């Protein structure tokens, strides 16, 4: 058993903010785990900010113990986790969950075509070495991430074929003005619009992909857009498997916390996208708050107010980018819905629950364990989330044998 006092799961902005404060107030007692080799999380991916550099320094000075390239396969609120990379359990006294978000994918004819990734997905690939220079890239779906990724890819030499946001202009504009003036992001917003604004169309969505060509509609007219690669996804959703396994209460699709990031489990805090999709600002504030709570110290009141402000921002963002009903009607009967088990939409549309669909068609039983199709079915059919059982990620059986031996 490897013992840790404070365990931070996830090295995205929320996890980094938490670990950074813990390293300062309880040096040497904090362990941080992440699935990737590098810090920064799946979406933000920033290793050069003062915070990231501070954390890297803490790691060098052994004030934070980092366990990279590791995924939690089993965990108990009694105070331990099992990693896919270790032969021993890792125990904790306090756990800070900062596992972040992933993308919502919705099916339409051709969505499983080659070279079609998520929006954050194509950004992740570009930031880990995918050559996009000179490639024609189509971005569509929903959310502020579309613009950020367009900018990021364009700066790497990609040819942006178009950025098609399904939310209507009036809603996005209202939110944009708020973002600029109420939340102090005016400069950032103007900069972004200057760089990629010319590519953006609101109230447009993809209906079909065929041989590197997309059909985009605004509900009235359609147009064909050519692409080499595409980034298509419909917003971010929290990664709830681990909090659910640990018995944290989930409310309205997020981990329920009080305003100091305390979950329903006494020794577990949650921060960042797990509590609401608020982006990096919410994550930074909440991560810090969670660290104060883990230390059982009163956080500074301005920090509590900051986290509340970004929580409001998250709510307003969700309203602005709510998904239109047309997106639920795009799939045809032979459109794949479950990619792992290649189950078609037509087989599932008359099922009554995820469990029913799983038993009859194996959705949720493939490698992703319902991470992709589960959220899709929740959105399309209002089904329940897939039930969670360990191992959370595929792991060799001998891992469990080793753990039992070493326990």
């Amino acid at each position, binding site marked *: 058993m490897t013992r840790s006092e404070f365990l931070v799961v996830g090295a995205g902005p929320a996890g980094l903010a938490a670990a950074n404060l813990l390293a300062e107030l309880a040096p040497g007692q904090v362990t941080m785990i992440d*699935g*990737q*080799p590098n810090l920064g999380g*799946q979406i933000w991916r920033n290793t050069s900010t003062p915070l990231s550099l501070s954390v890297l320094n803490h790691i060098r000075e052994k004030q934070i113990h980092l366990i990279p*390239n590791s*995924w939690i396969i089993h965990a108990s609120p009694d105070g331990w986790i099992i990693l896919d990379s270790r032969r021993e359990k890792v125990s904790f006294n306090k756990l800070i969950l900062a596992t972040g978000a*992933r*993308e919502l*994918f919705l099916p339409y004819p051709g969505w*499983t*075509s*080659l*070279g*079609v*990734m*998520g929006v*954050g*997905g*194509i*950004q*992740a*690939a570009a930031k*880990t*070495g*995918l*050559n996009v220079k000179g490639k024609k890239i189509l971005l569509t779906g929903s959310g502020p991430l579309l613009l950020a990724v367009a900018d990021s890819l364009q700066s790497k030499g990609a040819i942006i074929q178009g950025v098609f946001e399904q939310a209507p202009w009036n809603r996005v504009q209202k939110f944009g003005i708020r973002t600029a003036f109420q939340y102090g992001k005016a400069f950032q917003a103007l900069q972004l619009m200057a760089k990629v604004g010319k590519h953006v169309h609101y109230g447009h969505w993809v209906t079909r992909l065929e041989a590197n060509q997309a059909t985009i509609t605004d509900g009235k007219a359609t147009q064909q857009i050519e692409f080499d690669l595409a980034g298509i996804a419909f917003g971010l959703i929290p*990664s709830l498997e681990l909090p659910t396994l640990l018995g944290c209460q989930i409310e309205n699709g997020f981990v329920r916390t009080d305003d100091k990031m305390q979950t329903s489990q006494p020794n577990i805090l949650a921060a960042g996208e797990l509590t609401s999709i608020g982006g990096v600002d919410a994550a930074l504030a909440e991560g810090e708050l969670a660290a104060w709570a883990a230390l059982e110290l009163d956080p500074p009141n301005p920090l509590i107010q900051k986290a509340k402000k970004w929580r409001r921002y998250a709510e307003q963002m969700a309203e602005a980018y709510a998904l239109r009903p047309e997106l639920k009607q795009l799939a045809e009967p032979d459109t794949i819905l479950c*990619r*792992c088990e*290649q189950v078609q939409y037509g087989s599932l549309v008359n099922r009554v629950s995820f469990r029913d669909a799983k038993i009859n068609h194996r959705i949720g039983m*493939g*490698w*992703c364990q319902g*991470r*992709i199709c589960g959220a899709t079915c929740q959105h399309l059919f209002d089904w329940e989330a897939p039930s969670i059982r360990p191992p959370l990620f*595929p792991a060799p059986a001998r891992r469990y044998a080793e753990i039992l031996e070493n326990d």
Partner: protein
Amino acid sequence: MPRDVFQFRGEEVSFEQGQTVLTALMNAGILEFRPGHAPICGMGICFECLVRANGTPVRACMTPAEKGMEVSLDTI
């Protein structure tokens, strides 16, 4: 950045240090992995990029490319 190669289906795939098996393969024009499976999430969730690297099934998107690696699509 220094370049190396790994083996994939009997061919050498060139990569730059720091790239993942996924991005090295995509740069080499390989966009379909196991038959019918196209990587989508880029962040270790979808498992569409599952490959066997040096004998072990791994997510290519989460696996840094290494010199001399043996990569195949021979997985479950």
